[in-house]
């Protein structure tokens, strides 16, 4: 091997930083290509805003400069460790992002865990007897969950569990009624239930299918056939060998997904009034809040890139067949 694992990771990380830099330029440019600026929007909302006000505000927010120059300034500022202020929230960018990120991570990890907890066993069950009724049912179930629009599913869940049965709250982070901090842990979980279910259902199908495909793929491998020939019991074969190896691709896919957790889920967050990263990023983009939008988008991108590096590492580490000797 020409390069050690550490060296490879380092070079990938370096490349990722270059990608991020390029992305920040592209995003800045794209936002610069969006028509109008926040001051234009203010004018339309305020009949009293005069020509001098407009010029003053534009200069104040630095909008009178060309966007490439603004990007350079932004970059210089970030390199000095200042992410700047969010124009929309009038706060330091981090102060705006941290609560949204917390909410998003809570929602997304719960959903991911639920998808895995249901999807992986279902995939394994389906793979045990390919072509059986159970297999077909699991497959159908996987396809069905993949094919449903999330906002439709979300509103249906609200209509049924919140509006009709009244079991669960229809939206928000916590109930604001029962004193400070809402109703505590149980209250938070109850608010989490419907949005997490929506996302979990939407993500469920792919895990069922990946797990099933990986398990079936493993059955065909020689070492499994050898194990069979040696007379090991089917339960041991399944558990000890097949499962371990079949989990590798699923683990790598999961690592990729973990990176995606940071960008949130715009649609689900909108339907359930869940103030997470998806909404924050979309609002900052639409509200022309460059500092906030860039930090949010780049954070999400960086997390995904890191996730893919971790996925590669996990693959190397888990799979003896590709581990360099």
């Amino acid at each position, binding site marked *: 091997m020409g390069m050690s694992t550490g060296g490879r990771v380092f070079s990938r990380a370096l*490349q*990722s930083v*270059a*990608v*991020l830099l*390029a*992305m920040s330029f592209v*995003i800045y440019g*794209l*936002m610069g*290509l*969006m*028509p109008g600026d926040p001051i234009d929007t203010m004018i339309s909302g305020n009949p009293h805003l005069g020509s001098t006000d407009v010029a003053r505000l534009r200069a104040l927010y630095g909008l009178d400069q060309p966007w490439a120059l603004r990007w350079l300034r932004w970059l210089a500022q970030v390199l000095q460790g200042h992410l700047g202020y969010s124009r929309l929230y009038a706060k330091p960018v981090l102060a705006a992002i941290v609560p949204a990120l917390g909410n998003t991570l809570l929602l997304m990890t719960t959903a991911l865990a639920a998808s895995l907890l249901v999807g992986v066993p279902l995939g394994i069950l389906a793979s045990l007897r*390919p*072509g059986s009724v159970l*297999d077909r049912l699991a*497959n159908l179930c996987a*396809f*069905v969950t*993949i*094919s*449903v*629009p*999330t*906002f*439709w599913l979300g*509103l249906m869940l609200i*209509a049924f569990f919140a509006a009709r049965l009244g079991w669960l709250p229809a939206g928000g982070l916590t109930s604001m009624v029962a004193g400070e901090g809402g109703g505590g842990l149980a209250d938070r979980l109850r608010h989490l239930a419907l949005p997490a279910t929506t996302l979990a259902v939407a993500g469920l199908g792919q895990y069922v299918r990946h797990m*099933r*495909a990986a398990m*079936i*793929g493993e059955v*065909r491998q020689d070492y499994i056939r050898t194990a069979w020939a040696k007379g090991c019991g089917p339960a041991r074969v399944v558990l000890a060998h097949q499962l371990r190896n079949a989990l590798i691709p699923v683990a790598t896919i999961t690592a990729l997904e973990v*990176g*995606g957790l940071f*960008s*949130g889920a*715009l*649609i689900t967050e*909108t339907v359930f009034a869940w103030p997470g990263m*998806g909404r924050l*990023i*979309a609002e900052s*983009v*639409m509200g022309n809040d460059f500092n906030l939008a860039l930090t*949010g*988008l780049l954070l*999400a*991108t*960086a997390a*995904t*890139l890191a996730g*893919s590096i971790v996925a590669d590492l996990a693959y190397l580490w888990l799979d003896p067949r590709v581990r360099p000797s």
Partner: protein
Amino acid sequence: MTPHRVSLFARAGRDPAALIGLGVLAAMAIAATAGPAMLPEPDAIDLYARLEPPTLGHLLGTDELGRDVLARLLAGGRISLMVAGATALLAATIGTAVGLTAGYFGGRADAVLMRVTDGVMALPLLPLLVVLAAVDPAKLGLPGDSDASEAVAVGRIVVIIALVGWTTVARLVRGATLSLRARDHVRAAIAMGAGPWRIMVRHILPEVASPMVVAATLSVGNIILLESALSFLGLGVQPPLASWGNMLTGAMDEVWTAPLLALWPGLGIFLAVLAFNLLGEGLQTALDPRRAG
């Protein structure tokens, strides 16, 4: 058609799930093409017949402006399927171009193209689409928004989804190209002095066509869902032009008054996505029988 692809479709034809998918899509296509001739005008507004239940005149009732739901469903299906098909095609074309170039030339071109692919893949999808939907083409020197026709407005949606959707195909094609380039017949062609374009078109493209078709088919379902998500955000196909996405979004607002209204476009989206996934899965199995059950 090359013999290889014939066998791909023939093999897929033996898969009942793929056949069901194909059947559903064929039925939708026929209904969307032939249906409008027998139905009322999908844009005919009647404010005195809003949200009516199904009758003989309106088999699925009327919507919030008194338009025939069935007629709009079929017209919307045509738009949704066309948008999804065109997007998948465009995305596959971009992806193939990138993948072929990266895989064939290798080296620095490969590194740059693949890092770009990683970057695009890593960007959060929906916020990126929100940005792209609001970008003013006039600032890029393209024809501005104001003189765009309806077809251009729909084309714009095709382009923006394709701009973020090409990455899967690119990776797939690159991988296939890399391994093909090492094959004897390609090496022989290079040795005989064939130019890179000729080799790509004559020797590599036919070989990567099948995985490309599979990936494109599998992506159509996703694109239909994306269009509906864009409609939900107010950035999809715009009324009065019907699409399943904007019909479903509109119906969600009436969900407490006329729940049935949300059923039909939802069912349309669901069935179409399901059918494309079944078909794609069938094709994939035919292509790579090891994955078969």
